[in-house]
């Protein structure tokens, strides 16, 4: 079974530029998550989708971050404009439906450096 795919793996941009990350979850997984992991810290949930609907985006900085999952499969996370403090690894995870607590499967992440 293929895992969660993310691209690009690395991205370097200057502050105030825009950037987008892409995630393809495990086939059949209804729930998709985006996490931000700053160096030396644990992942922090940004947004959670159930199919193509948003379940939780309370920690998403909505003035600059946006995410969508239009067809309930792939998802994109965008930052516009980027700030220095956005430098982090952006992780995508997915989990199946059906049980109260399901293992979240993580992708390799996209490492963003904002200069």
């Amino acid at each position: 079974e293929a895992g969660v795919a993310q691209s690009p793996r690395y991205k370097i941009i200057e502050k105030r530029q825009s950037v987008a990350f892409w995630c393809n979850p495990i086939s059949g997984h209804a729930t998709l998550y985006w996490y931000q992991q700053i160096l030396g810290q644990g992942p922090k949930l940004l947004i959670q989708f159930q199919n193509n609907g948003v379940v939780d985006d309370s920690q998403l900085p909505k003035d600059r971050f946006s995410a969508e999952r239009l067809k309930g499969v792939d998802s994109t996370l965008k930052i516009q404009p980027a700030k220095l403090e956005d430098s982090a690894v952006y992780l995508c995870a997915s989990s199946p439906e059906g049980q109260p607590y399901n293992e979240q499967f993580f992708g390799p992440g996209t490492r963003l450096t904002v200069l």
Partner: protein
Amino acid sequence: GENVGLHLPTLSVQEGDNSIINCAYSNSASDYFIWYKQESGKGPQFIIDIRSNMDKRQGQRVTVLLNKTVKHLSLQIAATQPGDSAVYFCAENLSPGANNLFFGTGTRLTVIP
């Protein structure tokens, strides 16, 4: 959000010894806890989980202990191997039923051959 933290940021053990990684949590309503392993350049990988109605759960070479009285979680790795070297995170589910994880800071485990 509630705080999930670790007592020790780094841990070094000899190959073959047992490792114990500790985690404290403060949300008494959390009912599900998970340990993840993260190797350099990779995403977190599920190790073992435990629900709040249990105090111990065993996997292959790993055991998780949950002490709800003092809000403490630990991960025990038996016969630690070089491949176990990684950062270990505990995570708690803050919203029962919503599968919404809050991760701690992490402990870096280094296995000395």
